[in-house]
């Protein structure tokens, strides 16, 4: 159907009315361009946010004991709930759906620091006692050495894994610190590793100031007994951390004789809620982009239909002539539909290419900012799912053809006698 003859006919017609062709084409071009650029930016922002959160397990839950607020089984309110290593074993035995349970204990309060000494140098650090599985909660890589291992826990070795800043301040950036000693509250630990979080996010200084020791060693040397500060927990894939956290609380309430309705006895925080909130935000942004993009495309389609309507009215005489010299109604219809398809197809593809080019330029300009190590911009390379883009253009083509059917049908029905009547 689309032979070369038809093509050259179409080309002639489109060329013969440049302004009209240009206006119609620009409507479609613009619609596709806007859709592509907006989708690209949406994806760029989303992957930017995802990247900034990549340093954390996105579904981790933190749970700690506070003070009871209700009397229970003859016990008064106001008792503080202290977690201990037996709780850890009970949780692991009784709560299903826990992928990682990392009991933690800290030397100071949340974000509090203590001095760390090496030779004549002193710096401050957040010191904690941890288990090997903490690595799943804070994904990390190692510049030197290793993380806490089960033997450290088993034999309560006095070893420490230190952050980058501690390493730099106490030993110097290029010095291998493995085997060297650091003192915390006058107790010596052997450095066995220097870690680096997989991503720093906005916490670079803090993440570089951590000193991690084996939980059991920590409890012993700092006189914590069996005490646990709090739990970091990651649920099995597919489970909500909030739900698993709720189960953990039930178990802990029984063990510590807390009123099951006493929600103030435990505190918890989970990044999943934050994560879900951001997810929902993105669903909203996505819906907005598609609404605006499709509305722009729809306007383009209506423009095509409108302009074809006018074009056909203007070309009444031409269609009359064509029919009088042997054009069948079908060939008239085919010609008009082919004209529309060509116009929409070419301008749609040009819009797609221009949109991709624009995204490419944006990427080139923003690359130095977005790709730097401690990027704090919530934007990354804007990307486009080509399948979606092409599907959008195809849908646009079909919609335009449908919209042109009415004026084309009109042209088919033109009576040559009427159309050719001398004016």
């Amino acid at each position, binding site marked *: 159907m689309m032979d070369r003859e038809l093509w050259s006919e179409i080309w002639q017609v489109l060329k013969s009315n440049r302004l009209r062709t240009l206006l119609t084409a620009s409507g479609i071009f613009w619609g596709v361009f806007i859709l592509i650029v907006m989708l690209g930016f949406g994806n760029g922002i989303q992957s930017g946010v995802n990247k900034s959160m990549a340093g954390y397990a996105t579904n981790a839950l933190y749970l700690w004991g506070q003070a009871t607020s209700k009397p229970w089984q003859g016990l008064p309110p106001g008792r503080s709930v202290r977690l201990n290593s037996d709780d850890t074993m009970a949780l692991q035995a009784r709560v299903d759906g826990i992928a990682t349970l990392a009991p933690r204990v800290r030397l100071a309060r949340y974000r509090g620091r203590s001095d760390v000494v090496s030779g004549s140098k002193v710096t401050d650090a957040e010191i904690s006692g941890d288990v090997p599985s903490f690595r799943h909660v804070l994904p990390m890589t190692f510049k030197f050495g290793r993380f806490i291992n089960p033997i450290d826990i088993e034999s309560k070795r006095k070893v420490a894994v230190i952050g980058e800043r501690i390493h730099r301040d106490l030993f110097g950036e290029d010095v291998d610190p493995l085997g060297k000693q650091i003192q915390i509250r006058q107790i010596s630990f052997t450095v066995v590793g220097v870690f680096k979080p997989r991503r720093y996010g906005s916490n670079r200084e803090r993440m570089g100031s951590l000193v991690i020791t084996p939980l059991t060693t920590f409890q012993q040397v700092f006189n914590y007994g069996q005490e646990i500060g709090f739990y970091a927990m990651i649920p099995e894939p597919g489970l909500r951390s909030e739900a698993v956290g709720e189960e953990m609380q039930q178990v802990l309430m029984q063990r510590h004789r807390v009123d099951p309705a006493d929600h103030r006895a435990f505190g918890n925080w989970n990044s999943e809620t934050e994560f879900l909130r951001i997810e929902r935000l993105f669903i909203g942004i996505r819906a907005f982009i598609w609404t605006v993009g499709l509305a722009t495309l729809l306007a383009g389609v209506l423009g095509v239909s409108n302009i074809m309507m006018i074009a056909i009215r203007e070309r009444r005489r031409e269609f009359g002539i064509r029919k009088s010299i042997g054009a069948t*109604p*079908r060939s008239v219809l085919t010609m008009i539909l082919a004209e529309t398809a060509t116009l929409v197809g070419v301008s749609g593809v040009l819009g797609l290419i221009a949109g991709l080019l624009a995204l490419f330029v944006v990427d080139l300009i923003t690359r130095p900012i977005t790709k730097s190590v401690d990027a704090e911009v919530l934007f990354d390379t804007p990307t486009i799912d080509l399948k979606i883009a092409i599907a959008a253009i195809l849908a646009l083509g079909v919609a335009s053809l449908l919209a042109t059917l009415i004026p084309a049908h009109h042209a088919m029905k033109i009576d040559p006698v009427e159309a050719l009547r001398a004016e």
Partner: protein
Amino acid sequence: MIDLADISKSYLMGQHSVHALSDVSLNIGQGEFVAIQGSSGSGKSTLLNILGILDTPDSGAYTLDGHVIENLSTSDAARYRNRFIGFVFQSFNLIHHKSALENVALPLYYQKVARKKRSRIAMEYLDRVGLADRADHKPAELSGGQSQRVAIARALITEPALLLADEPTGALDTQTSEQIMQIFRDVNDQGMTVVLVTHEPDIAAQARRSIVLRDGDIVSDLLNGSSLL
């Protein structure tokens, strides 16, 4: 060649039905040159449209070159027009965005003749009307006489059985009209059946046969003296 038997056609004008043609019977032989005269409203345009298969009669029979023209679908009518009839109009009706050559070649496009062959044949026909040197010009760059000659070339290119002309000189000056009429006489001399509609007696006088229509009836049908020689 052309056989019209009891052709009637009426139009609805508001409440009234107007008889454009009433029981017109007419016979035109192969190679005739017929002028149909009449004032406006005499039914001559209706007759021409029926002859050209652009319009259908309410009753009566039309036979063209042995084919009964009856109950044609719109696409069949288009095919018959393309094969049997060449049209020449008062206002030339060239397609403005096509060159003279492309206008002449257009009927062959609808016959699915290949582009090169089409152009070659169109060039021959342009040459016959003396416009080979204007092949690449757009209609806007041609004079009225030239445009009409292009239109005639377009009408002739399919080698139709019948050449129909509707006031072909209506928009032209006397001298140019004369040139156009000469072309009609030439193609007629070569055996083409020509029917032209005009309201100008001196144009009609150049045909070999002159038919006068009034109020939908044929009131006279004469062979012109000059043509009998």
